């Protein structure tokens, strides 16, 4: 007899999701499915539009990571123009991406996962929110808000009011950085540095007490994928795509234009998300994790002194390849430090202030692939255009899609650990949500749909009948 437990949708993740747990006769979790039922038609909508509009259009897919799409789309546009943007434009795009990594990681760690981490996974839902956090741990909450604001200001200071629209364009960016704004970022950088330093210290102190979560929250070997520099170091906007396994072995390193040779995209009838996988390993074994954890697992070094020291410690604490999804949190903190350090390096680079930021060119290619590291993982844009630059085909590979299966494996592991009998306890629900949040998925992004629905919990028996049903507000 197989029982189905439905949890719908998960709170505090962007977008709408539903989970079904398939129980076997012993009441153990045989399979977890993370359903994404929203309509995904975004790629279709773009057809017939000009590729030059894509940075603006794709940055509207998602309110959480507009910058990632903006940068990836502009980079894909570079490919269609067949130009290399001026050095200043490349550096400015990097600076914007670092700002985005900081603000997004801060949101994920402090605002979304902070309540679980600081107040405990069992705390009542009314308290387990950013508001409860402000009440109980005001200094921690304040740090999170300030760090996020810093990241957002980096973006604003570069793009002005154009964040959502089109600061990055095919061929470069629209405006150079003013000395005033450079100084402003450098000044605020010190506060950001202090915040991430003390947060890392605090987190490392806490980590030994979280061993149960580390073991239950998606502790399994899997493949990892991320960008690396040609030397194999940490990278977030250029470089090569690398796939490695849980033993630290490199399985493939390739240019983004070859992505389709290495990566397949499976579809499942019960989800609108695509399921990308590493072809050589087959489906579903070839599913891989992307994002902060993958980036730290695959790089040799980060390239800045303090982040490199943290990376060494990260590996000592979590293993040469960190295989628990719970360590996404830790990886995020190390990456914030990396971003802070790299920001300083780029802002001190005289090339950053060059006034030339745009390569002017007409269409020179009919097809291009762009890649960039969004905070939550590697993002691919693939455009095919006609001779006038109108899109005939668009394919997007998004972080949450790539993390799709590993996320399900994580849910299954957590559910199996905490589910006792056919009941949906708060304890289990809370931990499953927290497990998903470790990945920082952004479902409105990966499905290109908007809006959230209230939490709907359904208990379905083997005969297909709903045994019990529960609604929870979606905004918890």
């Amino acid at each position, binding site marked *: 007899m197989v029982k189905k437990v439905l949890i719908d949708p998960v709170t505090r993740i962007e977008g709408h999701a539903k989970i079904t747990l398939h129980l076997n006769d012993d009441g153990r979790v045989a399979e977890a499915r993370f359903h994404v039922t929203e309509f995904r038609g975004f790629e279709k909508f773009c057809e017939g539009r000009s590729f030059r509009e894509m940075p603006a259009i794709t940055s509207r897919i998602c309110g959480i990571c507009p910058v990632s799409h903006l940068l990836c789309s502009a980079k894909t546009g570079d490919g269609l123009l067949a130009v290399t943007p001026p050095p200043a434009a490349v550096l400015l795009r990097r600076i914007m991406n670092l700002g985005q990594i900081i603000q997004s990681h801060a949101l994920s760690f402090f605002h979304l996962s902070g309540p679980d981490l600081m107040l405990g996974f069992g705390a009542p839902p009314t308290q387990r929110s950013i508001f409860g956090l402000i009440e109980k741990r005001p200094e921690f909450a304040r740090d999170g808000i300030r760090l996020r604001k810093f990241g957002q200001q980096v973006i604003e200071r570069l793009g002005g009011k154009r964040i959502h629209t089109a600061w990055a364009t095919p061929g470069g960016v*629209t405006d150079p950085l003013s000395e005033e704004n450079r100084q402003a970022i450098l000044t605020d950088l010190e506060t950001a540095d202090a915040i991430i330093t003390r947060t890392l210290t605090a987190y490392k102190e806490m980590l030994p007490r979280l061993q149960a979560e580390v073991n239950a929250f998606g502790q399994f070997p899997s493949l990892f994928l991320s960008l690396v520099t040609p030397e194999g170091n940490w990278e977030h906007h250029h470089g090569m795509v690398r796939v490695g396994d849980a033993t630290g072995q490199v399985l493939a390193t390739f240019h983004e234009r070859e992505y389709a040779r290495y990566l397949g995209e499976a579809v499942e009838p019960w989800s609108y998300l695509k399921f990308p996988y590493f072809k050589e390993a087959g489906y579903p074994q070839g599913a891989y994790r992307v994002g902060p954890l993958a980036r730290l697992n695959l790089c040799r070094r980060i390239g800045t002194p303090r982040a490199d020291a943290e990376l060494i410690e990260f590996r000592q604490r979590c293993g040469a390849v960190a295989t628990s999804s719970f360590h996404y949190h830790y990886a995020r903190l190390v990456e914030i430090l990396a971003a802070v350090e790299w920001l300083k390096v780029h802002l001190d680079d005289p090339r950053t202030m060059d006034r030339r930021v745009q390569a002017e060119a007409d269409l020179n290619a009919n097809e291009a692939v762009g890649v960039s590291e969004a905070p939550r993982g590697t993002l691919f844009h693939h455009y095919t255009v006609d001779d006038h630059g109108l899109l005939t085909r668009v394919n997007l590979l998004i972080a949450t899609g790539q993390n799709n299966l590993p996320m399900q494996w994580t849910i299954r592991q957590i559910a199996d650990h905490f589910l006792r009998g056919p009941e949906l306890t708060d304890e289990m629900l809370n931990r499953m949500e927290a497990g998903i949040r470790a990945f920082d998925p952004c479902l409105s992004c990966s499905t290109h749909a908007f809006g959230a629905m209230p939490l709907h919990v359904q208990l379905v028996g083997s005969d297909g009948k709903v045994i019990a049903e529960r609604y929870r507000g979606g905004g918890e």
Partner: protein
Amino acid sequence: MSVRTFTLNDQLITAAAGQSILAAAREHGIAIPTLCELEGLSTVGACRLCLVEVAGSQRLLPACTTEVQEGMTVVSESPRLKHYRQTILELFLAERNHVCAVCVSNNHCELQNRAVEQGVTHVRFDYLMPTLPVDMSHDRFGVDHNRCILCTRCVRVCDEVEGAHTWDIMGRGFQARVITDMAEPWGDSTSCTSCGKCVQVCPTGALFDKRATAGGMVKQPSFVKVLQHARARKESQ
């Protein structure tokens, strides 16, 4: 020059014979919303946004094409006019696919500005969502029919100022389209001089610079007026 006197919003106004209500109102600092009209081009009364109430007439009349008559009484602001203007703007928005957020003219769009000024907060009609093409065949410019409101400014400026008459209208009603030459791709047009006047006078993002990004297109339609004045002066010399 003979003179006409009329009442506009309870104010006594003198106008030159043959002057339109709109021109006379403007001279006296009274703003009437317009879209298709552009100083320096002929008037066609296509958009109907400038409708005014004229005493003795059941119908509302477009201020841009109605000549001032001696003793007429005109009202340019009333709840009824507001309602009509809002409706007209909503119909424009519903007829084609105006996606402001990603449009090159976002924040610099006359249609958008009029909608904001007239207090259009939502569209009460079903969107038609037609499938319309984008023509990017021209070297420098693009035309996106999704954003065209058929004001015909491009047609008029090309004919009356540039003298090329590349643009025209094909089809009727809501199936009408602006076309270049004999409905050929713009890039294939032999009459187009690539002067870009049509792009500058287009009130929305329908005609645009190919390299413009979202919100990046700021048009300068006032050049038409300047150009026409300069020409008139030269001719009178």
